[in-house]
C-alpha cells in the first residue's frame, strides 16, 4: 500500500475513530486484497510505511462482498461494478478480506 495513502488512513483513523470508519477495497487479486486489508487492520507487513507496527483494526470490506453489494443502489451497482463482478473471483476476494477481519477481531480479543 502506497506510503502517502498509509499516512492519510492513519490520520483519518486518529481524527474520526475506528468505529466511524469503513474501508472499501477494489483490488482485483486476492493477494493484493489481503495485503491491503492486513495493512489497514494489523499494520504494514513490509514495515516500510507509517502503518508499520500500527494496528488500526479498521472495518475493512471488499466492495464486491455480498453484504456490501446488498446495501448499494442496484442501478449504481449495475453501472459501476457489474462488469467487474463478472470477471473477478469474488468468493476468494471476500474470503481473504474476511480472514483479515477475523484476525483483527482475534487480536482485539487477545489484547
Amino acid at each position: 500500500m502506497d506510503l502517502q495513502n498509509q499516512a492519510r488512513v492513519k490520520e483519518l483513523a486518529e481524527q474520526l475513530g475506528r468505529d466511524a470508519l469503513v474501508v472499501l477495497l477494489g483490488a482485483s487479486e486476492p493477494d493484493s486484497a489481503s495485503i491491503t486489508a492486513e495493512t489497514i487492520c494489523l499494520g504494514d507487513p513490509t514495515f516500510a510505511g507509517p502503518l508499520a507496527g500500527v494496528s488500526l483494526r479498521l472495518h475493512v470490506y471488499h466492495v464486491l462482498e455480498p453484504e456490501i453489494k446488498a446495501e448499494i443502489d442496484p442501478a449504481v451497482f449495475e453501472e459501476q461494478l457489474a462488469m467487474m463482478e463478472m470477471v473477478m473471483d469474488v468468493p476468494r476476494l471476500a474470503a481473504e478480506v474476511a480472514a483479515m477481519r477475523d484476525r483483527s477481531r482475534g487480536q482485539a480479543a487477545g489484547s
Partner: protein
Amino acid sequence: MSILAGKKIIVMGDRDGIPGPAIAACAESAGGEVVFVTTECFV
C-alpha cells in the same frame, strides 16, 4: 444493521481492479460519506 449508512468511507481503489471513483459512487448510494478516495497500482 447497515455497514455503510452513516459511516465515513475510505475508498482504496485498484487500477487493475475497481477504480476509486466507482467505489465512491456505490458507497454514497448506500448512505456513506466518502472522506478519502484513491486508486492504487498494486505491483
